[in-house]
Structures are given as structure tokens and as C-alpha cells.
């Protein structure tokens, strides 16, 4: 479980996060949604510790990360896996080496054990056969799957995904979403996904937090989101007139 209390973050004069509090439960896919510039990525980076919040507290199963010393932070990070928006794969390494890297750097496994673990993770994300390819030689969807394999190779307790569907076609995006959901349930991870894709929300969102202008504007489940009374969220979900028309026709909403 990740508990966030009144997190604030500013860059110079610009206050990006204006006091956000929420709880993300384990074994669930928690989605952070919002328009571009709403503070989603900054919020996610504050949670994983890439940015230090100006105030507030963030605790991972009772461990407050903000006051943590470097050593404890590094230990906690071994329990974290992250899928980046641009994948952040190491260009000079093959797919296999990319996935093996965290094990080489941080585990005490034998070479044979490492190879078995990498092969298992690549099989789990359906990437068997692409081991020797370099990131530049594979498609966007495959890169995402390599990113997921690398994120789960250390068997993390917490999984973070920043815009996992960006740049993917709708079908591949659904496959990636399903993979994230399956892995979350399979390993009972606390997963937080940053997205503005409503397909993801309806597909995998156990809990949804909507950010608007650096504030938590709404939170609830995917079942509640369609009937929201929050006008801002309603506008975000039904961004096009076409979708708004369909919604109004279906619900009789004016």
C-alpha cells in the first residue's frame, strides 16, 4: 500500500502539485488520469523519488520515503519496477541484456539463475525469440514489453507505469494494459499507472485518481467514473462531441 498525504511540489514560482492525498492499495491497478500538464508525471516522479516533494508525506507500507537516507532509499528502490513513457531501454544492450541488467547490478544470483529468470520474464511478456535484438530493431509495442520485463525481473512489490500506451495502436495498447493487469494480480503488486487513455481506465482501472491543475479533483472506481457529477472530469472523459452525444443518448443526461 502506498499512502500519500498532502504532497506539494513547485518548480520556481510555479506550483505543480497543490496538496494531493490518496491511498493506493496493493494487488490493484491504480490509475492517475488527467489532462496534459495536470501534474501526473510530476506526481508519479514524486512517488518514486525522482523528485523530492516540498512538503507532505509518501509512505510505502509504512516507510516514509521523504526523510529516508540514501541507503534506505536505494534498498526501497530494489522493490520498485518502473515502465517509462519512452521505455528508457539501454541502446547499447540487447533485449536480453537490458532485462538482465538489474540482476547483474543488484542480485546475488548465479549466471545460470539470472538467465533462467530473464528467460522467464521475457516469456511472460511474450518476447521469446527477440533476446538478441537491440532496442532500435524492435517495434514500439515490443519495447514496452521489454520495459515491463525489466521492471518485473527483480520481482518488485511496486510497479509504476508512465503513459504505457503512448505511441501504440489501440490493439497493442490493450495488450499492454492486460499484461500490466495480469502481472499486478499475479504478483500482488501495488501498481500505479499514469495515463490519459480512457480505454485503459475502463479496462484495468481498479482505482482512478483524476488530477486537474495540480489538485486531486476526483477519485473512485472505473464503475463510478461514467456517472460522475464532476463537470471537469466529465469533459475530460467525453472530450469529443460525438462521445458526449452517445453518453447523453445512453443516459439521458443533459
Amino acid at each position, binding site marked *: 500500500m502506498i499512502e500519500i498525504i498532502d504532497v506539494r511540489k513547485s518548480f520556481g514560482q510555479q506550483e505543480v502539485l497543490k496538496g494531493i492525498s490518496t491511498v493506493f492499495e496493493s494487488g490493484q491497478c491504480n490509475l492517475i488520469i488527467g489532462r496534459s500538464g495536470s501534474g501526473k508525471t510530476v506526481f508519479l516522479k514524486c512517488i*518514486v*523519488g*525522482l523528485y523530492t516533494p516540498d512538503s507532505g508525506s509518501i509512505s510505502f507500507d509504512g516507510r516514509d520515503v521523504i526523510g529516508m537516507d540514501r541507503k534506505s532509499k*536505494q*534498498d*526501497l*528502490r*530494489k522493490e*520498485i*519496477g*518502473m515502465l*517509462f*513513457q*519512452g521505455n*528508457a*531501454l*539501454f*541502446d547499447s544492450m540487447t533485449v536480453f541484456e537490458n532485462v538482465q*541488467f*538489474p540482476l*547483474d*547490478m*543488484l542480485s546475488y544470483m548465479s549466471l545460470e539463475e539470472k538467465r533462467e529468470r530473464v528467460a522467464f520474464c521475457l516469456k511472460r511478456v511474450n518476447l521469446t525469440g527477440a533476446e538478441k535484438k537491440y532496442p532500435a530493431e524492435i517495434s514500439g509495442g515490443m519495447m514496452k514489453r521489454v520495459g515491463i520485463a*525489466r521492471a518485473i525481473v*527483480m520481482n518488485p512489490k511496486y510497479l*509504476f507505469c508512465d503513459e504505457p500506451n503512448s505511441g501504440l495502436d489501440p490493439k497493442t495498447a490493450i495488450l499492454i494494459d492486460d499484461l500490466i493487469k495480469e502481472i499486478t494480480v499475479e504478483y500482488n503488486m501495488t501498481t500505479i499507472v499514469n495515463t490519459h487513455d480512457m480505454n485503459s481506465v475502463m479496462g484495468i482501472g481498479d482505482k482512478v485518481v483524476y488530477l486537474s491543475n495540480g489538485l486531486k479533483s476526483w477519485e473512485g472506481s472505473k464503475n463510478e467514473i461514467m456517472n460522475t457529477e464532476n463537470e471537469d472530469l466529465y469533459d475530460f472523459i467525453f472530450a469529443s462531441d460525438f462521445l458526449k452525444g452517445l453518453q447523453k443518448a445512453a443516459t439521458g443526461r443533459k
Partner: protein
Amino acid sequence: MKLFSEIGRFVMMILSLFTKPERFSMYWKETMRQMVNIGIGSLIIVGIVSTFVGGVTAVQFSNQIMGLELIPMWWLGYIVRDSMILELAPTITGLLLAGKIGSNISSELGSMRISEQIDALEIMGVNTPAYLIGPKVIAGIFVMPILVTIAVALGIFGGGMAGVVGHYYSAQEYMRGNQDMFVPRFAYIMLFKAAVFGFIICSVSAFYGYNVKGGALAIGEASTKSVVNSCILIIIANFIIASLLLS
């Protein structure tokens, strides 16, 4: 004020390199890779430049002292050797590599920063300055003296070839000059200078690359800054070392 802030951040970065490696074998592997990149990758350019610098030094000095009864021509061997050891090989190799290696390091780290690869390493729990910058700095400190020694050898060879082919002196005269009045301390100063220059090139360029913020334009700016500042620091360090160790 900005200068002091940059110096402070640079010192903090250097201090952060002194931490226990997460896995020593990975750091060792990375250091060896950097040594090959910096050393083998720079051999050809260093070889060509130093051979011609030695040749030019020999030809120019020959023309200046030719006909002067007081200075025998075999002194050219001595002049070329000491010029290469004390000044030309370390400084020219340093400036050359500030351009070649410095821009390479800053753009490599800058690209890693922008493509979030450094963030990915941070999330894994890797001490990124120690892993990404440390091996480069160590490689620079150890490889640079080797490159400069090779540059001296090739510079002396170039001086000999230019003088003999240009009929300024015979090979025997040149060899005599090479072997005469050798001061071992000069060679130690050369090695020390080279190590300092190696540190400057790798640490300064890594500093600018690691702290890139923005996009492709920022990488270009970081690359330019790293080359310019490395060159300035090399020239200043050269003067300080020469003043302190030769006086």
C-alpha cells in the same frame, strides 16, 4: 554567482563518486569498456597529430638554429624530445581529447538523461554518478598517461623522420640528441600532467552531460560547454603544474 554554484555542484558530484559500488564486477567491466573507448578509440588521431607535431617542431627548430655555430644540430634530438615530453604531447593530446572524448561523454550522458535511462538506473537503486561517471574518470586518469607516452614516442619519431628526410641532420645525430641530458623528473611531470588532464576532460564533460535539462539543443550546448571549459581548465592546470613542479 552561477560560476560558484557550478563549482559547488561539480564538487558534490565528485564526492558522490566515492561510494561503495553496488556490484564491483559491473563497475570493473564498465571501467574496462571506457578504457578501451578512450584509449583504443583515440590512438589513431593521437598518433597522427603527435607524429606531425614532432616533425614540425624539428623542421622549425632546424631552420632557426641552422648556421648558428654555437648550437650543434644534434641538439635537435634533445629539443624535440624535451618539447614533446614537457609541453607538446600532454597539452596537445589533452586539447585534442577534450574535443573528441569530452563531446562524446557529454552527449552520451545527455542522451541518457533525456531518454530517461539515468532515471531508470536511479529507480533500480543504482548510484548513477558513481556508475556512469566514476568509470569514465578512472579510465581518463589511467589511459591519458599511456596515450601521452605514445604521443611522445611518435612525436620523437616524427621529428627524426622530418629532420633526416629534410637533410637537416643525420639519424645518428638525432639519436645522440635524444639520449643526451635526459631528466627522468620531466617524464614524471608529463605523466602527472596527463593524469590531471584525463581527470579534467572526463569529469567536466560528464558533469555537463549528466546535468542536461531539455532536449537535443541542450545536449549540443552541454557538449560545447564541456569542450570549451575542459580546454580552459587544461591550459590553466598546465600552467600551474609547470610553475609548481619545474620552478
